[in-house]
């Protein structure tokens, strides 16, 4: 049990790191892109551009939340 806990902890630290908001930002951006893709709101390579903009936007939000919550 201890080994499993340590194993899980290691992979959590390795992938999620010390700021879970980054992983949450990436997942949110991909989810938003998935919805756009499934509903054919944008097609062709505009979809890729939209994906990049979404990732940058969600990263910006996570950084702003990080800085604001700590400087309050």
């Amino acid at each position, binding site marked *: 049990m201890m080994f499993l806990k340590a194993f899980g902890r290691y992979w959590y630290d*390795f*992938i*999620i*790191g*010390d*700021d879970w908001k*980054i*992983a949450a*930002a*990436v997942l949110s951006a*991909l989810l938003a*892109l*998935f919805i756009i*893709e*499934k509903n054919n709101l944008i097609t*062709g*390579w505009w*979809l*890729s*551009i939209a*994906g*990049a903009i979404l*990732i*940058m936007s969600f*990263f*910006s939000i996570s*950084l702003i939340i*990080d*800085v604001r919550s*700590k*400087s309050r």
Partner: protein
Amino acid sequence: MGITNWGLFIAVFVACFVEAVEATTIVMAMGFTRGWKSALLGTGAALGVLSVITAFAGLALTRWLPESLLQLIIGGLLLIFGLQWLRKAILRSAGLKSQHNEEEVYREEVAAAKHKGKLTSGIDSFAFGVSFKGVLLEGMEVVFIVITFGLTAKNIPLSAISAVIGVFAVLVIAFLIREPLSMIPENLLKYGVGLLLTSFGTFWVVEGMGYFQSGQGSLSWPGDNLSVLGLLAAWFLLSQLYILLLKRLPLTASQELRNDVS
């Protein structure tokens, strides 16, 4: 060598160089204070474990997953990894997080090594254990970067060669100067690696979203691989913008942040 291969070579080389600096600092601290035999044995054992993991993970990933799903999973992990590095680099450049200092790490390791009782013969389990753990943990990041870049750029040999050159370069420098590698501009390199991992991660994860389309083919980018350069420029400009904005934080707020940000 095309844009993807050049990007692959530079990203893997710099990432491995930075990780090797961190691992070498730990091994040097053990070698100089506890003895080289156990420190090098620990390093060798960790490198052996890493080789097995690399071979197994690389083989398993290429056999089990379709290309677009591979791009999605690996690109996603690479992106999370890159954004973590980029976030820290932005906070460091804005003065909101302390700079990584190899000399300080070296001093801490030496102090811990001296605190332990010294062995006169046989294997020193402390030096072996610390070297093994240090090389394994830093090496796991190298393995991850080598596999992800190698698989998605479809060039594992080039990825492995740039990793070996990166690690070898650090070992040569360490052998020549024989002291902590604090003169290497590690924080600047980490910023560069963060930008590269993030740009390639964005490129591949978005391509991989094609997995959810009817043919499961990858999504296309305007200009194909050349758009990585556009992504690199965009991430650079965005990070510079945040560095500028964060530098303008009121003094009291930035002082609190400096204490809080890990």
